[in-house]
């Protein structure tokens, strides 16, 4: 039997039961659409996180106390401000190691108050991280040395607290202590879940007094080039080991953060897509079911075709093509809905970037065709094996 003829017969059969064909397709449509949407969102989330991590700066090394592993309890820091100087000298970049000591505090200006992340830092921050200012200037070494009560405010915090008034030179209260505004950060958005536009930076020494904590949480530095990251990392860990022989420290690079986050998001995407694939499977069972009905309904036609010379494989091909046609049309509609849905979803929800990869619609199409073959083959074989005498006699 020529393929063109099998194709024609299949199309005729599907059109003869248009509503039934459409309902049968629906399962495949939903399955394919959800796989495409979830893969798009998963990919989008991954790219967004990557952009955020890259946006922090380049060749970064973050030093934190303890072992950075899932499931391990956060370790109380024993790092001190002087460790930043020690490391800076060891890597030949004095004054280029950023420190941070952070806590949440209430920030007040006049009658308005907000809760913000307060970072105690040093002047190395803008040299390590990408942290541009829109107004004023950043902290100076003398601010740290003299524990001066000055503050750099994040852009959204500034907008909400000052409501359009010029923040420079104004005095705000942080945890009940008054600080003078020295500068305003340009907006950088959020990074790894933290809204960086809602931060304030004060000298680390002022933060230590404010929080009653003489340590620092973490250090951050920048390798001169990508090739030197490992070497710098080893030097830093060496300095810390000789100073705190009983302690463990982790020095994480951006690649390591990206790798860890990528693995989590990849796993999440896979699990979600697998759940969506189950609905595709259910759609396939529906196709199988309706094909069995179709074979039963057309038993006499099958008998007639066999009587006039159709071979087993002619009949099998005809019904298999019908099943594959059902699922691939469903697949194409599902891809269109999935792509449209992803774009609509990411347009409607800010935090939900969706990226359509070239392979996910192709894969979805291939899978829906495979579902048609897999779930069509049993009904089609049944049709192919019908005995012509019995088939012609059936009502």
């Amino acid at each position, binding site marked *: 039997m020529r393929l063109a003829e099998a194709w024609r017969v299949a199309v005729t059969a599907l059109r003869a039961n248009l509503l039934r064909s459409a309902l049968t397709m629906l399962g495949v449509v939903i399955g394919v659409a959800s796989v495409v949407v979830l893969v798009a969102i998963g990919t989008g989330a991954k790219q967004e996180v990557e952009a955020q991590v890259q946006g922090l700066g380049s060749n970064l090394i973050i030093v934190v106390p303890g072992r950075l592993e899932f499931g391990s309890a956060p370790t109380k820091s024993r790092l001190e401000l002087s460790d930043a100087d020690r490391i800076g000298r060891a890597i030949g970049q004095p004054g280029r190691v950023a420190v941070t000591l952070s806590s949440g505090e209430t920030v007040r200006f006049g009658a308005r108050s907000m809760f913000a992340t307060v970072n105690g830092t040093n002047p190395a921050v803008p040299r390590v991280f990408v942290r541009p200012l829109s107004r004023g200037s950043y902290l100076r070494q003398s601010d740290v040395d003299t524990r001066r009560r000055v503050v750099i405010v994040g852009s959204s915090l500034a907008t909400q607290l000052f409501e359009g008034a010029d923040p420079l030179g104004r005095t705000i209260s942080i945890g009940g202590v008054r600080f003078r505004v020295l500068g305003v950060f340009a907006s950088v958005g959020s990074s790894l879940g933290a809204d960086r536009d809602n931060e304030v930076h004060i000298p680390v020494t002022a933060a230590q007094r404010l929080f009653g904590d003489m340590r620092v949480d973490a250090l951050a530095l920048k390798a001169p080039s990508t090739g030197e990251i490992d070497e710098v990392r080893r030097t830093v860990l060496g300095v810390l080991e000789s100073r705190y022989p009983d302690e463990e420290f982790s020095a994480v690079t951006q690649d390591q953060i990206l790798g860890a986050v990528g693995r989590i998001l990849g796993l999440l995407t896979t699990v979600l897509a697998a759940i969506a694939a189950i609905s595709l499977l259910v759609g396939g069972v529906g196709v199988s079911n309706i094909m069995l009905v179709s074979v039963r309904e057309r038993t006499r036609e099958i008998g*007639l075709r066999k009587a006039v010379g159709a071979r087993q494989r002619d009949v099998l091909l005809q019904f298999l093509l019908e099943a594959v046609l059902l699922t691939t049309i469903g697949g194409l509609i599902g891809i269109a809905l999935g792509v449209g849905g992803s774009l609509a979803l990411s347009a409607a929800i800010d935090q939900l970037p969706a990226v359509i990869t070239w392979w996910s619609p192709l894969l979805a199409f291939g899978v829906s065709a495979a579902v048609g073959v897999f779930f069509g083959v049993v009904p089609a074989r049944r049709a192919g094996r019908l005995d012509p005498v019995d088939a012609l006699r059936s009502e």
Partner: protein
Amino acid sequence: MTAALEAVDVTRSYQLDGVRVEALRGVSVTIEQGDYVAVVGPSGSGKSTLMHLLGGLDRPTTGTLRVGGRDVAAMDQDELASVRNATIGFVFQSFQLLARTSAVDNVGMPLVYRGLRRAERRRRAAAALEQVGMGHRLSHRPSQLSGGEQQRVAIARALVGEPQVLLADEPTGNLDTRTGDEVMGLLERLNAEQGVAVVLVTHDRDVAARARRQVHVRDGLLES
């Protein structure tokens, strides 16, 4: 000249709900080229089983059956399908036309399994419809045709592959007497003009009487 169809001492038995049914118990019959034979017998006599065997739709339990000179025992299902396609044209009591398909495509359907292109199938189908006097109804669907016209289309379908034998199972059973007469006249004309053998299975004595010879089946055996 080889016989078109030849059954030598064939038997056919079934298991029906665990009971062994002997539908044919040793039948020999030969259909020559250009023959015109009526197979008659009451229902349950085994004449339908004999027709299925002669048409190559079924195989004998024992005995030898040759369709177009070839022993069906030596053929698999698909070879048998090809032999049916080349040798036999079936005409059924209930016409067995495809409902959503035009007359010309119904008639051309057997040629699909010869791998012919659609244009060629339609050309031959139109010629076959012309022969049965239905040349003016090419694109009509079965529901738009009368019973007699539908049976003519079915005969055209049986004819389109230029078979040696037309095997007609109660071809007038669903038609009134006058239309039935016309259909019989058509079969006889095809037999006379084109030399195609006609095997008529019927329990209608008047219809059977028109054949050149009659084969009577009773209780799975031939009566002479």
